[in-house]
């Protein structure tokens, strides 16, 4: 029973990590008023870039860096088209996802079914050996802790720093921010790059830690869940964390039920985490007034300074 609980908690945390990374990035992007639907594409690009680099060099940390770079590169493509050239953000984001999927499949064709070095699990003497708590809290790889740390820093930054205030201001009214002399477009570029970096990191986690392999479309829609998480958490970091963990838990449970051989179609079971997370988050955030209160007022609206 204890072993089952430990396995449950450990895999919940592992499954929630890529979601958390990608959603934290998207949170910052949306806070400044930009809607980037290309998260899934950036995650896939990060996954293959990380996997291929780690496979070629044998160094996982280089793979992680390559994944971040790939995420940023794709996000900059999005930024140029949607922020500088003012194309519709929704369409551009969708195109980015399609591009990321196709591109990663092309590059990854030669990497299917071969191993790459895996991100090592941290092992702290004594601490990691405590029963239950040890493996659950101290037995993960570095990205798990990084994801939580980034979320904490982002939450603090949004809430309590002048930088966070500027980000919120740009998302609340870009015209007012511009009138006050803030450089709306460069700030948005930076936020989009941050979102891209974290999506890339989430991809690296998928291909180097979670399932250390490359398979086409291996993110399996997690990028979309991340985008949904941001909205349904009403742009609040704490609920983002709860949502990500909930997804992870359902992921494990559906696998577990499958393993028990319950007579439910497996396709339906694999859909449960996605449906369940969205349903629960919709229930949490069903107050339309609160959504409107926290929603960055400029979300998805292009900004053009009149000159």
């Amino acid at each position, binding site marked *: 029973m204890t072993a089952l609980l430990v396995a449950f908690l450990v895999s919940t945390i592992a499954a929630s990590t890529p979601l958390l990374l990608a959603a934290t990035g998207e949170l910052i992007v949306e806070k400044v008023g930009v809607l980037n639907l290309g998260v899934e594409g950036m995650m896939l690009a990060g996954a293959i870039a990380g996997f291929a680099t780690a496979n070629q060099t044998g160094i996982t940390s280089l793979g992680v860096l390559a994944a971040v770079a790939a995420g940023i590169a794709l996000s900059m493509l999005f930024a140029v088209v949607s922020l500088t050239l003012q194309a519709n953000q929704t369409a551009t984001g969708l195109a980015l996802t399609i591009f990321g999927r196709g591109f990663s499949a092309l590059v990854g064709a030669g990497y299917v079914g071969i191993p790459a070095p895996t991100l090592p699990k941290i092992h702290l003497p004594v601490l990691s050996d405590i029963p239950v708590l040890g493996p659950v809290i101290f037995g993960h790889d570095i990205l798990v802790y990084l994801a939580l740390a980034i979320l904490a820093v982002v939450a603090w930054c949004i809430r309590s720093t*002048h930088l966070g*205030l500027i980000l919120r201001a740009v998302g609340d009214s870009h015209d007012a921010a511009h009138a*006050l002399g803030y450089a709306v477009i460069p700030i948005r570029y930076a936020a989009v790059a941050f979102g891209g970096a974290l999506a890339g990191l989430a991809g690296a986690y998928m291909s180097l830690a979670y399932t250390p392999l490359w398979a086409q479309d291996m993110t399996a829609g997690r990028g979309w869940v991340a985008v949904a998480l941001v909205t349904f958490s009403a742009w609040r970091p704490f609920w983002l964390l709860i949502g990500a963990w909930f997804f992870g838990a359902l992921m494990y449970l559906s696998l577990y039920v499958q393993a028990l051989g319950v007579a439910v179609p497996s396709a339906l079971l694999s859909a449960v985490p996605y449906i369940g997370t969205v349903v629960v988050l919709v229930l949490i955030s069903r107050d339309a007034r609160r959504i409107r*209160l926290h929603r960055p007022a400029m979300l998805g609206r292009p900004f053009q300074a009149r000159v």
Partner: protein
Amino acid sequence: MTDAAPSGPLLTMTGMTKQYPGCLANDHVSLTVERNQIHALLGENGAGKSTLVKIIYGVVKPDEGHIVWDGRKVAIQNPGHAQRLGIGMVFQHFSLFEALTVQENIALGLGSARERVGLRERIVRISNEYGLPLDPDRVVHDLSVGERQRIEIVRCLLQNPKLLIMDEPTSVLTPSEVRKLFVTLRRLAAEGCSILYISHKLEEVRALCSAATIMRLGKNVARVIPAEKTVKELAEIMINMDLHAPTPRPLAPSSAPSRLVLNKLTIRSPNHFGTDLKDISLSLKGGEILGIAGIAGNGQSELMDALSGEILAGKPDSVLIDGVPAGHMGPHDRRRIHGCFVPEERNGHGAVTTMTLAENAFLSGFTRRALVRFGVIDTKKTAAFAENIIKVFDVRTTGPKAQARSLSGGNLQKFLVGREVLQEPAVLAINQPTWGVDAGAALAIHEAIMALAAGGAAVMIISQDLDEIFVLADRIAVIAGGRVSAPVLTRDATVESIGRLMGGGSAPAAAGEMAVA
């Protein structure tokens, strides 16, 4: 130190030219603001005032022209540059962040971390010193428009400006708030901060400003001393035509039947920053114009939506149009029973800006003008309807095929009011009938509303412009905090008595009416 002793004008602009696609917004405009001066900038909508001001504040780059600021020639690059030069601006549509607190909003307006040291204390000190009380921790969306304006002024004052630009500062204030603002502005000017004051309210300009530059169609037309001119003279220079007051109209007979009745209308606003409507009861007779005065954000838009059916009232009985319970009906059903509506926002609410005038005429008029036959749009009839609106209301446009967004604000508003008036409504509700509309168009709209009432319709006007309400309405009620005061006859009301109610004062009139009942 490059600063010589201050001499000569503070700001001199010559030959300012700015061309927008299809519109020469500024055509060699000049402007001189002296030190310690409150200088008015006058002109109709579209005269180019905003463009000129945006050039001063670095938001817009001019194509041609020279700016001499404080004795030195400058090219103002951006708002940050303008602020460093000592130019502050209070915007017409406030440049505030709704979801942030007062202190956060002000912090955003100050560049460096050094300037933000001890900000809280400085906000409190300056706001007390100038009679602009503010609580740094309140969130902006909870504040009245007057308080919001104070934030902007305090934000500017924290930077010790030499020139403060104010764009229509009083259009959103109660009469007593206006008086307080004037005291503050006079004191600022005396202390060495010049003020560039943009307003439509000529009476105020005469009282406050020592010089005025008047613009028309992107050009300078005059520089005058406002106190030496009458309001009528100033207005005629602005619009270059004779103005005549609308003809007065006899009161509706007290025996006329009620055409619009609100019965304890109570509605929760769908908008988080909105105002809930509480227990509103009103009754309008045919031939009557009721004016609803009030400061922006006190439930006007919710009331308008409840009248038009965009928000459903729940109980059918809470809205009666010509005796028919309509609280549960959407806009189309209400139009079918002779209710017509003109919302506040022309662009995107009253009109679909990317559609043609004919299409826009169709969208609201298809039921009452029978513009659909067997599910197909009767294009001929629709075009004729639009053509008729354009003709009757003198809408300056190329024709029914013109896009709504190609019209100026005043012309589009005339079209939208005309669209509803020509549907021969029994009940017409208009929110802000002449907001941002030039004097000529405003007069035309006022006359149309009066003619409609003279024809037996009940008209409700929701407006923040007290002058407009006093000109048009037979009775005046005030909306404050989602409640509507008991209406009083216009001839018994004064600007002061209405102004008190707008500020949320008690409503002695309500007690009076109860005694009569």
